[in-house]
């Protein structure tokens, strides 16, 4: 009886050890956003365990640096950030407390996903009188699916640095990701091609990469300046603009309330379309591919 118990206990111990050994073999990756998490999962497959700090329906400029994230960062092999000061308000206090030199800026595990991304709206002069501007350029670059390839390459490089033995595995996944995104990007652009040049209004200046990729024309914003809530005079200006130029679409993000957009749409005879800014914005969007499937189909339905 005693022997049986001991055997059972040891088997249990063995199971725990074996399961923890398979966990050990996985690289621990922390990303700031779910889009980076999705791409990392596609490149790293089952060899990575990826945690995203922000949710897909959260404003990435304003994430609370909760101490619980420090625990994740303290054990991370790789940390992936959007960069360009998008997360300036919350990444620094987390990294400063993480006690993990691998993922500090300059460390082998630190990945600025924006490296080599062709940036848009890089200001030649910067002043906070212009609102929440980003001095390195507009940071919402993941909303162009082809920038996903640059992001994937940056993540691939970091995974190889952390785990060089699996280079061929990561490389195969990278090639597969690039092929898929190329094919899908062709489908998405074809679908929206009939509406190329269509003028639209956006709530916040976060769509220039999406706009450029799909040939849309964002002519104004509900925010008078980036980060400044809509004012009556700005909304009045936009209503007149929509009436004058026959603009029918206002796009907003999941983390902005729709009241001001609804009011403008009612007065200007347009409609409000909520587009997803990140993976996980709603239950349908589980991967980086789903993000564009969803946004393109939402826009297509609204425009036709």
């Amino acid at each position, binding site marked *: 009886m005693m022997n049986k118990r001991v055997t059972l206990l040891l088997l249990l111990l063995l199971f725990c050890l074996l399961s923890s050994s398979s966990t050990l073999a996985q690289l621990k990756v922390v990303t700031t956003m779910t889009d980076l998490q999705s791409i990392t999962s596609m490149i790293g497959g089952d060899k990575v365990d990826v945690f995203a700090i922000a949710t897909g329906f959260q404003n990435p400029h304003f994430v609370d640096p909760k101490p619980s994230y420090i*625990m994740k960062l303290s054990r991370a092999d790789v940390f992936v950030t959007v960069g360009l000061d998008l997360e300036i308000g919350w990444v*620094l206090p987390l990294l400063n407390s993480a*006690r993990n*030199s691998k993922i*500090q800026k300059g460390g082998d595990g630190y990945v600025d996903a924006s490296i080599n991304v*062709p*940036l848009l709206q890089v200001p030649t002069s910067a002043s906070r009188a212009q609102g929440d501007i980003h001095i390195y350029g507009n940071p919402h670059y993941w909303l162009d699916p082809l920038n996903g*390839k640059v992001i994937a390459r940056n993540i691939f490089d970091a995974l190889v640095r*952390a785990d060089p033995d699996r280079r061929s595995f990561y490389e195969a996944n990278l090639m597969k990701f690039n092929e898929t995104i*190329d094919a899908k990007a062709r489908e998405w652009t074809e679908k929206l091609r009939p509406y190329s040049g269509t003028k639209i209004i956006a709530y916040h200046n976060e769509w220039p990469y999406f706009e450029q990729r799909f040939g849309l024309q964002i002519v104004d914003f509900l925010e008078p300046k980036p980060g400044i809530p809509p004012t009556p005079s700005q909304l009045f200006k936009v209503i007149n603009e929509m009436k004058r130029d026959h603009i029918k679409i206002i796009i907003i993000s999941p983390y902005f309330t729709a009241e001001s957009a609804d009011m403008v749409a009612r007065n200007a005879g347009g409609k409000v379309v909520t587009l997803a800014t990140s993976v996980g914005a709603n239950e349908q969007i589980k991967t980086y591919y789903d993000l564009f499937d969803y946004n393109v189909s939402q826009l297509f339905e609204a425009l036709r």
Partner: protein
Amino acid sequence: MNFYRIISIILALLCLALTSAGAQQTDSSAVADSILLLQLQRSMQPAAATPTIQQAQAAPRSTLSTNPDLSAIGDFRSSYISVGKRKLDVYLNELEFQVSSVVDPYARAEFLFSYGKDLLTGELAPDLEIATLTSLSLPYQLQLTLGKFKPTFGKINILHPHAFSFVDFPKLTENYFSPEGMFMEGASASWLVPNPCDFFQELSLEVGRIEQNASLVRGENSQLAFVAHLKNFFDLTQNSTLELGFSGANGPNQSGFSSTIGGVDLTYKWKPVQYNTLQSFTWQSEFLFSNMRSDEETVTKTHGIYSLVEYQLGQRWFVGARYDYSQYPDDGGRRDIAGAALLRFQPTEFQILALEYQYTDRNYDRSSQGIIFRIIFGIGSHAAHQY
């Protein structure tokens, strides 16, 4: 017996395998060699072998700089208080200059100079509030800070006044330490405590000289002050968190003997993730007790408490209320009971306007009430505050 031997051998082999796997993961020299090899391989590969990117060439970036982050924060006030010589007053309460940067791959540094209003003269006086060097890469989840800093005692003491939602610190902080809390010159070590439930638990131990306050003084002899804090943080749901902290401090007091102070802090925060810029609620409370020895036989035992709530009405508007009860560390017979109501308007994160009504009942002096208007304005790259 054989059975045990077999199991032991299996376990030993398993441990060996795990150790070698772990070593493979963490051997930095092997990684460095592999990276070098990769770079060589990559440089020898034809250009077509790398995945093509159908984009324009990346624009060169010219914003690189090794300059430290600089910021300045102003705190301007206007007040009406029912007692005192200057009932109606207008003044610059404080000006802070902050400089911070990574020193090298192993540490970062922070300096904070202030010009603050002297409570006695009303004139602005310079002060060095913070000068620290903090490690970034110590092993075993440790972090070390050296220099002058605000010791980790409770929730309020680590804050600078501009980072606190109310215009003034609670009576408990003011009566037991100073209007800006407690400052220390020394060393602080903090450790992320590993625990089976994997919640955030941080133990901080600090030792050094305390800048004179109502409870503790710098001390004339070799007696140093000690401060300890255990912070426990729990994510209750995606939208709500709970923090429970325990603090302790011991050091020389103005009578030449020592004081011991203990504290408990509890903070509940609710912030819906999706609309976290639009709605939030905070309930924060601290309890403090003090044993101050003033001679061989006399120990004065006193305590204080505050509890505050803050609710965010919209993107820019906040309301709050606070209750304070506080004795004085050297006189258990004196006590303040105070209440405050707050209205705050925050057009951007760089400008905060607040209007606060205060009522203070004193059992040793006249009670008072007042209204204070405060505007905080910041320029430069002031870093975000801790959660």
